């Protein structure tokens, strides 16, 4: 028995009047409740394009179907454990009482505490393994797209194949920034990297897949309906990792066919005497060393000669975005900067599925063109996106990203006018 003296009747009366302990408990409950509410509210967002809780394809659906029950089970276990610990802390707190009887060994309790977690883990394990195998399946592929990461943008190329479209893809397509896919089609991405490890992730369509140099890793991708699904490189890959974004664009089969047809359409040069025509010459002189525009030719001694880029001579990664159809995309420079005005982009992204395809295929129209972004980029790219791209940061005489080309304002006008026609 405790030898602590009991409070006098006067003390008891005072305690009942002021009840300081009750106040303390109420304050603690209020503080804890406020923190919990704050944490809960922090999870709310009106516009959360990279939300994993709203899948838009069967692969993401599988992950969602797995993670929700697991979170529920983990939550219940967490509440029970924290509740039991809290109860014990409060109920058996030190009040000067005697140390209770010490016992050792309760076989039935120990067996139960072993069996229950084992059953829970088995339950979770069975569904997890089944999901992992389902997400790794490659035998039911309907379309193949190669995804190549480099500092700090993604390149997508569509090899010649029977899939993707009813007639297949007969001419290879190469694009960047936006991964355009046919909806309700089982896509298999072959993900790799040219330089360091990156990670490809479109949360609404599937989980992550690391892009590792020298390794060809596959990732299933399928979108239920037309729309734009945003993503982000999720493996720290250097200076502009945070500005290495991505977007998957789902188009129904007919729209995807139109898009694919446009990507390999014959090159149309600007009309003679226009600013864009001068821009073509400026582009050939300044930009085509790294950037390819398919079909672009120059006259050499009376012979029309294709202009072929040589990024391997100027860029560390040995590649630069293909600009043949730049204005069919909504972003540039690693999907970081918009080619469209915010209003047009918002209209496109919030378009109903049945109208999305038609709007996307319009590309960047003159009234939607956000010229300021592209102009600033051409004026001084490293000022917009850190890339160690200065003369002093060259590696083996090569740039890491687009350098400041010191173009005049006139040259910038010309190049912008030329690029605006690349649709």
């Amino acid at each position: 028995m405790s030898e602590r003296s009991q409070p006098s009747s006067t003390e008891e009366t005072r305690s009942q009047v002021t009840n300081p302990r009750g106040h303390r408990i109420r304050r603690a409950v209020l503080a804890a409740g406020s923190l919990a509410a704050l944490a809960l509210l922090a999870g709310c967002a009106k516009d959360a394009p990279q939300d994993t809780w709203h899948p838009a394809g069967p692969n993401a659906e599988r992950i969602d179907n797995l993670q929700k029950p697991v979170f529920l089970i983990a939550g219940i276990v967490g509440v029970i454990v924290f509740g039991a610990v809290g109860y014990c802390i409060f109920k058996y707190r030190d009040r000067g009482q005697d140390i209770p009887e010490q016992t050792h060994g309760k076989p039935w309790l120990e067996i139960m505490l072993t069996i229950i977690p084992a059953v829970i883990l088995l339950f979770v394990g069975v569904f997890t393994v089944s999901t992992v195998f389902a997400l790794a399946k490659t035998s039911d592929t309907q379309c193949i797209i190669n995804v190549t990461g480099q500092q700090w943008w993604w390149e997508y190329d569509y090899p010649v194949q029977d899939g993707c479209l009813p007639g297949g893809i007969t001419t290879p397509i190469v694009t960047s920034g936006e991964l355009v896919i046919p909806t309700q089609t089982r896509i298999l991405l072959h993900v790799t990297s040219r330089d360091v490890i990156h990670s490809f992730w479109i949360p609404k369509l599937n989980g992550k897949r690391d892009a590792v140099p020298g390794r060809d890793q596959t990732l299933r991708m399928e979108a239920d309906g037309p729309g734009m699904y945003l993503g982000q490189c999720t493996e720290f890959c250097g200076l502009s990792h945070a500005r290495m974004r991505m977007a998957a664009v789902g188009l129904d089969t007919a729209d995807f066919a139109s898009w694919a047809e446009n990507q390999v359409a014959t090159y149309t040069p600007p009309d003679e005497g226009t600013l864009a025509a001068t821009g073509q010459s400026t582009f050939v002189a300044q930009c085509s060393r790294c950037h390819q525009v398919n079909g672009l030719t120059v006259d050499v001694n009376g012979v029309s000669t294709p202009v072929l880029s040589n990024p391997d001579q100027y860029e560390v990664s040995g590649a630069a975005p293909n600009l043949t159809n730049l204005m069919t995309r909504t972003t540039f420079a690693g999907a970081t900067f918009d080619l469209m005005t915010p209003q047009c982009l918002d209209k496109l992204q919030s378009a109903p599925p049945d109208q999305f395809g038609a709007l996307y295929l319009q590309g960047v129209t003159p009234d939607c063109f956000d010229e300021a972004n592209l102009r600033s980029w051409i004026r001084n790219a490293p000022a917009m996106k850190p890339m160690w791209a200065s003369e002093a940061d060259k590696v083996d005489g090569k740039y890491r990203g687009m350098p400041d080309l010191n173009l005049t304002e006139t040259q910038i006008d010309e190049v912008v006018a030329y690029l605006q026609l690349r649709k």
Partner: protein
Amino acid sequence: MLTTGSKLLLGGTVLSALTAVVWGVTSSGASGYVGVIGLVSLALAFALLFGVNAYARDCNVPVSAPDAATASAAAKHPAGPGVWPAVAGLFGIGGIALGTFTKPIVFKAGVIVLLAALVEWLVQAWSERVSADAEYNASLRKRVLHPLEMPLLGAIGIAVMIYSFSRIMLFLSKSAGPIAFIIVGVLILAFATMFALQPTVKRGVIIGVCAIGAIGLVSAGAAMAIGGQRRIDRHPITSDDDSAQCLRDENDVLNNAEYEEIERHSSERVSAKSSPAAEVVLENGKLTAHIVGVDGPQTAITIARSNPVNLLFTNRDAEKSRLTAFAGTEVTTVNDVDIKTDRLTCTTLLKQNAQTLLTVSFPKTSASAAPDAPFKLFLPGLDGQEILVTVP
């Protein structure tokens, strides 16, 4: 009774005297005289020391207390003659002799056994004479040697167990290995559970079970070591001679190419082999590519520009083959003369059913290739079999 020290000095006296006689008979001239004088002087010195030592009983017992002579440590008999130093020495010398003609490791083991036996013998001999109390002497020996013996014997025991286990796992096939591992694990768990459920277990039972397990493990390990390990395929190794040429046909124009070698560190490529961009297979004289997600063999592949990719080449045909990648022609100007060099990368010459990686990068778009010389993968000497490469 002669004491130990006296015996040593008496032995020295006799040996010196005999040597002096032998030296005197066999030597002549000044060196003979000097030698005999020196050896006789040595014999006299030993004899004097022997006398003093025998009288003083190795200085262990004061002359003033003759009764203590019988109780002194020096007067005590040794703990008893032991054969183990001889046996251990025999093993050591035998190991050295055997190792001289067989393997260096056996020779080294013999030296170690011999040194260990020597140390044990020395410490035992010393400890048996420390005092007249045999029990104290034994405890002293343990105090000196146990800190060395215990870790060493423990390490040897663990090493024997690990070695035996490794021999068993290397003997069993890949499929049988995990099954055996599971069975052993289940047995250990079963015995451990049985012991845990018993309120008391006799020490002898546990020792017996552990001893049976250890003997079983070591016996099985020894038997399977004699049986030899299962076949384990080696990774292909590149030799410098082999890397000297990507092409074997003598009349080809690609002779001046600068060749790159691959698979130089083949053992480090295991993980890369699990996820190549494509597997290129030569079978029945046909070269095809297999890509994950694409049905059936392909004769054209797409590879991203400037991207070093790994292609896994498998040769299923009897003739040795070398997969070669042609990535266009590079023109360099030296002294106003254009020199054309083909970009070639090739594997080692691969025998039947062997695999190797070809790491290749295509720095230019395939649009830059000449119409009659597209980017491709091919096998020198095997006409008509090639895989076209598209670089977008």
